[in-house]
């Protein structure tokens, strides 16, 4: 395992120039914040559903390491145009990959760059953080909270 296996170019790029960062303008359908108290990373995810229940816009905000910030950035980008069911599927697929339970699959697209995280056990939480926040937002929304 070399450092470059973890920090793929696309991760460093997104960490340096995060996409979809900042508050979501307009109506917010679901949102949630989550942090990792052990390391201090914090991320907030906001999503708006549009016609047909498709994600119309997604944004994140927060502070953290390149892994968590890049994951939040790529995630936000990929959410747009998906149904909640598809978002949940993607989330499961991704978290299984970063925790080493599953090999990367094509549906993960750019998120495949995080496959190396599985070799760095203390960084799995960083990579999963934005997706866990998203999950929290979804289950709150579905629970009517």
């Amino acid at each position, binding site marked *: 395992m070399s450092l470059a296996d973890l*920090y793929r170019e696309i991760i460093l790029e997104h960490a*340096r120039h995060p996409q979809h960062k900042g508050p979501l303008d307009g109506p917010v359908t679901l949102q949630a914040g989550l942090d990792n108290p052990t390391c*201090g990373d914090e991320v907030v995810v906001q999503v708006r559903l549009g016609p047909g229940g498709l994600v119309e816009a997604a944004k994140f905000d927060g502070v953290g*390491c*390149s892994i968590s910030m890049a994951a939040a950035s790529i995630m936000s980008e990929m959410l747009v145009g998906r149904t909640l069911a598809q978002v949940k599927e993607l989330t499961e697929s991704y978290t299984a990959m970063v925790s080493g339970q599953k090999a990367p699959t094509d549906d993960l697209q750019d998120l495949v760059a995080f496959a190396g995280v599985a070799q760095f056990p203390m960084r799995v939480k960083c990579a999963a953080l934005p997706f866990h926040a998203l999950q929290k937002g979804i289950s709150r929304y579905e629970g009517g909270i």
Partner: protein
Amino acid sequence: MSGRIDRRQDFPLLVGPEGAELTYLDSAATAQKPEVVLAALAHYYRYDNANVYRGVYSLAARATAAFEAAREKVARFIHADPDEVVFTRGTTESINMVAWAWARAELKPGDEILTSEAEHHSNLVPWQEAARATGAELRFVPLSEDKTVSVDSVLGAISQRTRIVALAQVSNVLGNLPLEVARISEAAHRVGAVVLIDGAQSVPHLPIDVHAMDADFVAFSGHKMMGPTGIGVLYGKRQILAAMAPFHFGGEMISHVDPEVSTYKDAPQKFEGGTPPIAQAIGLGVACDYLSGLDMAQVMAHDRRLGELAASRLREVPGVHVYGPRGDRMGVVSFNLDGVHAHDVATALDQQGICVRAGHHCCQPLMRQLGVAATARASFYAYNTEQDVDKLTAGVLSTMEFFHHVAR
């Protein structure tokens, strides 16, 4: 003299399982253990293992003698009397014991607890809870520009209402030179306040004389001073321990037990209800002897030398920020790299066999004072060498390189 110590060979983990050199720079979190400590643990379990105090057979006598000898060694190490040494699990439990058993009995609305925003959570959160429970007020010593606590600001912050002053002698983030506790004790005692010193980062690294410091309580952890995990100490002055209520009620701390009411033994037993961490106390005693063998003045000089060297080397690297005092300092060096998160720094260094910690170091309020979410931290001990500082500096340079140039 020069603070040059080279004892790597005593530490199995540092020479590596199969010869792989490890640059362990996280001794402020926990220290590595010399072989003599591991040997003492194994010896105890193999030849002397029995419960203490309770048995009249010879094996129990050996266990009890070894346990009490450990208490004497620890007492000698900090220049206390053995009955002032209470064994706990660690600094956190020691401070909580005072916050429960002393503070909740002694504090009332209007009283002030004086601490600082530079404290480890273990010396802050117990006081928040004690304040809430008693109605006492939490007050914070103003920090210096470099965010350290200075004796003068402590003296200025002590008031007639101060009942306890709770401060770390050395910060686990800033690596300041040790506070001159004696001056604080004098001022605190003048207003009738007691002094609790969080010695987690000082007792392992410098000569300690609790009587000279004149603190009422000193808390520290065995695992940070080359001893086992699961053991720590609450030093308390004889009179204050005598007046303080017990905390863990149960076996071996009692004198007489009737169904409805009980009486208790004297300190330290009064505070050691239940089977104590016997093997761990014995291991800590051996660690104290090992450190005394190195000479604590030398240990401190070595620590300072490596800390000062690392801080100045890192400061020379463009884009590196080093926190804490600019000049003289102990061997705890927190830093950040421009544009690279501390976790990424730690992972990058780990790939080069260098262990540094990254995060808030259980000091969230201090992080806010420093204006950062996290820092990387290198911390040194007697087994570290100048080569470790070289590796750290080289590692930081190549990390900078990786994140700023490679893969762009």
